[in-house]
Structure formats: structure tokens, C-alpha cells
């Protein structure tokens, strides 16, 4: 075991002096920074200080919206008709349907989901090339839930200093109840997260009742417990370690940055050389950074943004708020830490710095790809038919010789009715003159078979026998003659035609 860091290191800060008039210098180490992070040491806890400002407000709003969507979405109702689920957003695996409001996806239409995933990935690429790790910093569930867990921790245990003091105090009654309250709240949040997750897969009000009365399927409890546990573990305990060690996205993202991507960054050209600022001292020949370490103290990842862009930085922008606050106090322009581009950071001269260009080959490419995929999906959706037909020819036997010398083939005809109402169809066969069609369960043996009813949102399989009588055998060519099934929607008159083959003993 590695020996623990000396406790005193963390509780010094009250005595660490001033960075500038009225600005406390915070004694904080960027524990995740490259220099301080040892491969051989245990994790050092991070005690993020509360930030105030524009980006903190934005993050609260994003948290409220994303969590609100997550927790409330399954409760939104959407009337579809009798016998169909009235949940707006439902992944109904049991009945092999996915419902998204007015959209209903059948198993064979999963390519729509593929399309949504492709658009999501490209959207992520676009946002990253425009403004860096927006996803990581604001909307990633890991970030949002960790932020929530930290807020809970702060509510029960106080801000940074109070939490550090509590952690390094002995187990008093106060420590026990504060820790218990924190972990209990985390578990409750985890339980709510897991509890809501299962609502996406089964009618929410029904399942909620079942969960409470103990009648829900075992799998619902298993997933609820699993996600309760992972939410507690990843959001409450593991936190930044998930982003640093577990997540592949930080490794991939560098490929989407270019010189014009906006990145949360410390403007070294403005801040350096850094150092404490005394009252009445000139700001000439020195940087604006007073080295107060406020940016380090608020960082949930435990890094020093002044070290430059680094894998550990999720670009949550809280350091911008912290620094702007300090800049206000020392009466320097805000934005020492801000969204800026690599081009501006690397520039050696102010004349090379310029406003960000949003239209670049990279962003144009991503936007075009998004438009193309959306276009294809839109087209597929518009031309999606409400009726689908498939024909499967019997293979055992391929054909049957009848006593009068005729030949009969059997087919399974499947009619999918995607409408939310029962639909009537007729079936006929085209391509060989003189064929006789019989459908098992339907009396009429000649002509188009009418009145085949397919229930709402259902598939109906029909056994169809097609006979070429002796007199019509001249119409057969070789061992296989093309013919087609015509399924007519009796309401709209729309026809679906499916090609098939009629097998016979050969020439």
C-alpha cells in the first residue's frame, strides 16, 4: 500500500496567503495533472469548489433539462388506438416494436435506428470540431449525474473546505450522519435512475404499480438494481476516473479538433508570466494570472487548465466562471480562461489572432454527411409503405403432381399491416394463364381472393396453393416459371406486387 498523503496538505488553504488584494490563494494540487499523477499511487480525492457564473448556470439548466427528459419521458402518453401501447416513448422488445411518438418501428426497420445512431455520431463530430468536448462537459450522463452527486455531497457536507475537514476528521457523530445522508441520497438517486430506466421498456404506470407491489418481472428488478448500483458507483464514487480511465471518447476526440476548434483554454499569452499581485503594483510586464488557483479548486477533474489542453479535461467550463470571478476582483478584463482556438493560443503575435471561423472543410463535411443521412432517412420514412408482403415458396415438396396431371405449388404469403386499424386485402396471382388459387381457410378457389382481413399492427401468414391444371401446362417454361402475387388493399386500392417462381418437373 502507498502511504497516505499527509493530511495537513489538504487543510492548509486558510493560511496560504493572498494572490492579490482580496483574492485568497487556494492551496490546491491538480491531482490529475500529468506531473502529479503517479501510476503507483492510489486515487487522491478531488473536492471541487462551488463555481458561480454563466457556465455554472448553463450547466444547471442543462442538468435540469436532461434529467427532466430522462425521468419524465416514459410518462408521456400517446394514444395509438385500441390494443396498442399508449406510451409515447417505448422500446417494446417483448412485442418487437419501438415507439417514438408517431413513429413506430418494426424489427425489419431497425435501419432507422442505425440512421439515428449515425446522425448522433456525426452530430457529436460536428459539435466537437466546432466547440470541443461540449458533449463531455455539459450533456454526458456521467457528467450530469456526477454533477448531481457532487451537489448532493455539497448539500449535506458543505463546500470544498468543509468536505476536506470532514474527511480528515475522526468518526464523530456529525461525520457519520453527514456521510450516511450523502450516501443514502446517492443511492436514492441511483434507485430512481434504475427505476426509470425500466419504464422505457414496459408501460410505465403499469410497471410502476408492479414494482411497488412486487409483481414486476424479475428482469425489471435486476436491471433496476444494476443501474441503481452503477449510478451510485460511477456518479457518486468513481466520478472523474470514469472519464480518465474508462471512457474511449477522450482518446478519439483529438481526431476531430483542428486549429479553429473552440476549446476551453487558458490564454497563456495573456496570463503569463503569472504571479501574486500586490496592491498598487503595476500590471505592466506581467501576466494577468495571479496564480490564485481558483480554476484548479473548482475543477471536477482535478486538473490545472493552465497546463494546456489535456485528455483529462472534459471542458465543463467551470474554470471560466472561477477565473472571471477573480478577474472582476483584480479589475482585469474577463476571459483569461475562455473558449479559444488552438490557432490563437499558438499565435506568437496578436495580429495573427482572429475570430473563430465556423465554416471550414471539416465542419462542412460533417454537416453535409448529416444532411445526407437525414435525407436518406427522411426519404425512407416518406416512402415507407403501410403494407408489406413477402412470399416464401414451399421447398419440401417443391411441387405436387395432381391426379389429373396438373401441378401445384405451395407458398406462404405474409402480409404486414402497419396501420393501427384492421385492413382488408385481396390476393391474386399473375403471370401464368389459367392458374387456380386456393387459400387455406378461404372457400373460393378461383379468381382474386377477397376479404382477407389483417388485424391492426399485425402480420398474417396465409397458406396459398397455386395450381396449373393440365390444360394450362403450356404456360410453364422449363422447371421454373416466373409468376407474381398481387396483394390489393381494398380500401385504398394500392397494390403490392411480389415476384415468385412456379416450380414444375421440368421440360
Amino acid at each position, binding site marked *: 500500500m502507498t502511504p497516505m498523503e499527509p493530511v495537513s496538505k489538504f487543510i492548509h488553504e486558510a493560511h496560504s496567503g493572498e494572490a492579490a488584494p482580496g483574492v485568497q490563494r487556494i492551496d490546491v494540487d491538480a491531482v490529475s495533472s500529468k506531473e502529479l499523477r503517479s501510476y503507483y499511487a492510489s486515487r487522491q480525492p478531488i473536492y471541487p469548489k462551488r463555481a458561480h457564473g454563466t457556465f455554472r448556470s448553463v450547466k444547471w439548466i442543462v442538468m435540469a433539462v436532461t434529467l427532466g427528459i430522462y425521468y419524465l419521458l416514459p410518462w408521456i402518453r400517446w394514444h395509438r388506438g385500441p390494443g396498442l401501447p399508449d406510451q409515447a416513448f417505448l422500446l417494446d422488445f417483448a412485442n418487437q416494436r419501438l415507439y417514438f411518438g408517431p413513429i413506430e418501428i418494426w424489427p425489419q426497420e431497425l435501419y432507422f435506428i442505425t440512421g439515428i445512431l449515425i446522425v448522433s455520431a456525426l452530430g457529436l463530430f460536428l459539435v466537437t470540431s466546432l466547440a470541443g468536448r461540449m458533449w463531455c462537459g455539459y450533456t454526458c450522463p456521467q457528467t450530469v449525474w456526477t454533477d448531481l452527486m457532487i451537489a448532493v455531497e455539497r448539500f449535506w457536507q458543505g463546500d470544498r473546505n468543509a468536505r476536506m475537514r470532514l474527511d480528515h476528521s475522526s468518526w464523530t457523530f456529525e461525520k457519520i450522519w453527514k456521510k450516511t445522508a450523502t450516501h443514502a441520497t446517492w443511492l436514492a438517486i441511483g434507485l430512481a435512475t434504475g427505476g426509470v430506466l425500466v419504464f422505457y421498456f414496459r408501460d410505465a404506470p403499469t410497471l410502476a404499480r408492479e414494482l411497488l407491489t412486487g409483481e414486476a418481472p424479475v428482469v425489471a428488478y435486476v436491471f433496476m438494481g444494476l443501474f441503481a448500483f452503477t449510478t451510485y458507483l460511477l456518479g457518486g464514487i468513481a466520478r472523474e476516473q470514469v472519464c480518465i480511465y474508462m471512457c474511449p471518447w477522450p482518446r478519439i476526440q483529438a481526431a476531430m479538433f483542428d486549429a479553429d476548434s473552440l476549446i476551453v483554454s487558458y490564454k497563456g499569452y495573456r496570463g503569463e508570466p503569472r504571479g501574486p499581485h500586490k496592491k498598487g503594483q503595476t500590471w505592466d510586464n506581467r501576466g494577468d494570472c495571479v496564480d490564485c488557483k481558483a480554476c484548479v479548486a473548482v475543477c471536477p477533474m482535478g486538473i490545472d487548465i493552465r497546463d494546456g489542453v489535456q485528455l483529462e479535461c472534459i471542458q465543463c467550463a467551470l474554470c471560466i466562471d472561477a477565473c472571471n470571478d477573480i478577474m472582476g476582483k483584480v479589475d482585469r478584463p474577463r476571459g483569461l480562461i475562455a473558449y479559444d482556438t488552438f490557432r490563437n493560443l499558438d499565435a506568437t503575435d496578436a495580429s495573427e489572432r482572429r475570430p473563430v471561423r465556423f465554416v471550414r472543410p471539416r465542419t462542412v463535411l460533417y454537416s453535409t454527411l448529416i444532411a445526407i443521412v437525414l435525407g436518406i432517412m427522411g426519404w425512407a420514412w416518406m416512402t415507407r409503405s403501410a403494407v408489406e408482403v413477402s412470399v416464401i415458396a414451399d421447398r*419440401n415438396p417443391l411441387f405436387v403432381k395432381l391426379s389429373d396431371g396438373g401441378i401445384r405449388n405451395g407458398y406462404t404469403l405474409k402480409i404486414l399491416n402497419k396501420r393501427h386499424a384492421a385492413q382488408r386485402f385481396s390476393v391474386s396471382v399473375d403471370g401464368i394463364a389459367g392458374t387456380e388459387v*386456393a387459400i387455406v381457410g378461404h372457400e373460393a378457389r378461383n379468381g382474386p381472393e377477397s376479404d382477407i382481413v389483417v388485424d391492426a399492427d399485425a402480420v398474417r401468414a396465409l*397458406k396459398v396453393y397455386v395450381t396449373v391444371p393440365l390444360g394450362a401446362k403450356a404456360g410453364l417454361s422449363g422447371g421454373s416459371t416466373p409468376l407474381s402475387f398481387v396483394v390489393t388493399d381494398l380500401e385504398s386500392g394500392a397494390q403490392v406486387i411480389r415476384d415468385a417462381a412456379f416450380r414444375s418437373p421440368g421440360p
Partner: protein
Amino acid sequence: MAGHKEIDAVTGTETTGHVWDGDLKELNKPLPRWWLYVLYACIVWAIGYWIAFPAWPFLDGYTRGVIGYSQRNEVAKDLAAAKEAQATYLAAIAERTPAEIEKDSSLMEFALRGGGAQFANNCAPCHGRGAQGFKGYPNLNDDDWLWGGTLEEIEQTIRNGIRSGHTDSHESAMPRFGIDQVLTTAQISDAATFVLSLSGTPGDAAAVERGKAIFDEQCAACHGPEGKGMREMGAPNLTDGIWLFGGTKADIEETIRTGRGGVMPAWDGKLDPVTIKMLAIYVHALGGGK
């Protein structure tokens, strides 16, 4: 190694005290504690598992486990649940005639699926998986029926069998004209030529003439004067293109010489009446049902 506490200068970590090649040392990096605790938890879990579930084999059995779990019981439970789910359908099928069942689409679907499964289990060995039949075992897809192709007739055949020994079995025997020396080899050849001519295969006119005389005398009693067969005798129609024992002249001569009589077991008693009804519906729906 007790008391050894060498600290590696580069990493600040204790070494294990093992030294290879004079200077090669190993850092003491034990398993993370949580990992170790998971191992201990698994051991505790395993002990609980031994107690709760069937675990230790003996020569004459095994420990049953205190909660009495058994995979066989699970299967029995699943089967009972399936039976229960099928019960309403089976009851409905039991009290309706096959014709009534065919009119109810959900009942019909159930009967077709159930019948199909039973067909694969019981009938496919002789009639083939697709009911296409083999030489001596009739094709059930076509419209040629020895003992009748209506739902009732098919159900009766399945229930009572053919030459099965069942009291209500279909019974008939075609004489062994050659073996029992009723007809000579030449007469058999003539009769075969005539039979072939019934389904449109031309033969030597004189032979056909001679064969017809033999047919009228020996065969027409069962196969009918025109060779169209007789349902009551299970005598096949000889004028169509379907041959149960082969349609070449040699096949037909062999049939006349040795007589024919396939056997189908009676399923009465082996299968319950509902299953037999579902089988009849399935076979009837194969396409040739009357």
C-alpha cells in the same frame, strides 16, 4: 522475508525481496483490496450455493440443496404452464368438428401449428417431413386419396390406421397374382400393359386387348370396370398419373405379382383425440384435402 522493507527508489514502492540476476527486483503490488474482497465474497457465496443448490455427488445420488431447486422440476413447470396456456384452445378443438375449426381463424392457426408439430414427431418418418411421401408411403400433398380425403375420412384413417390390427382399421388385400400362381408371367405383362394404357401410356394393341380381358376378370372387382379405383376397398385409381409403388411397367408387374398392402399404425390410444383432430386438419390443409 519477515522484516524485509526495501523501498524502491524510483517508485517509492516496497519490493518483494526477490532478486534475480543480481539487481532485478520485483515491486510488491498486491491485488487491489476491493478485488481481494470480491474473491472472499465469491468464496462465501459459493458455500451458500453448496447449501442452497444441488451440489455434491454421491455414489447413489447427490445433495439436494435446502431450497429444493431442480432443473427437471423447472421443465415440468414450464410444460405445465404451456399446457395451461393451450388448454382453452385444446378444449375448443375437442368440442368442435374439424369443419367448424377451419372457420375460426385463430383456432385454425393453433390446429395447423399443433398438427404440424405432431406430424413432424409421428408421421414424418414414413410420409416425409414435407408429407411428400416415398415409394409405398403416399404423398399427402396431392389430391389422390386411397381411403378418402375429407376431414372426417382423414381423421378416421389416422385414428384407426390401415391394416393395423385395430378393430376399425381399413382392411383390404390385393391378391398375390404371381406368387400364388393365379396369373402367368405373360398374363401379368399383358395386364400391366393394359393398366398403363389406362393413364394414357400406349402399348402393344394385342397385349392391351389380352390385358383388358384379364383386368375385367381379376381386377375390376376392386379397381372398378374403368380402373378408377374404389374408396371402400382402398383400391387406387389406375387412370391418373400418381403411382404409390411406381409407374413403370416393371413396377406395375411387380405390384401385380406380389400384391401390395402398406400398413399404417392406428394412432387411437397412442395420441389423444384432440391431437388426432389437429393432425387431420393439418393434413387436410396440405393442399389435397377434399
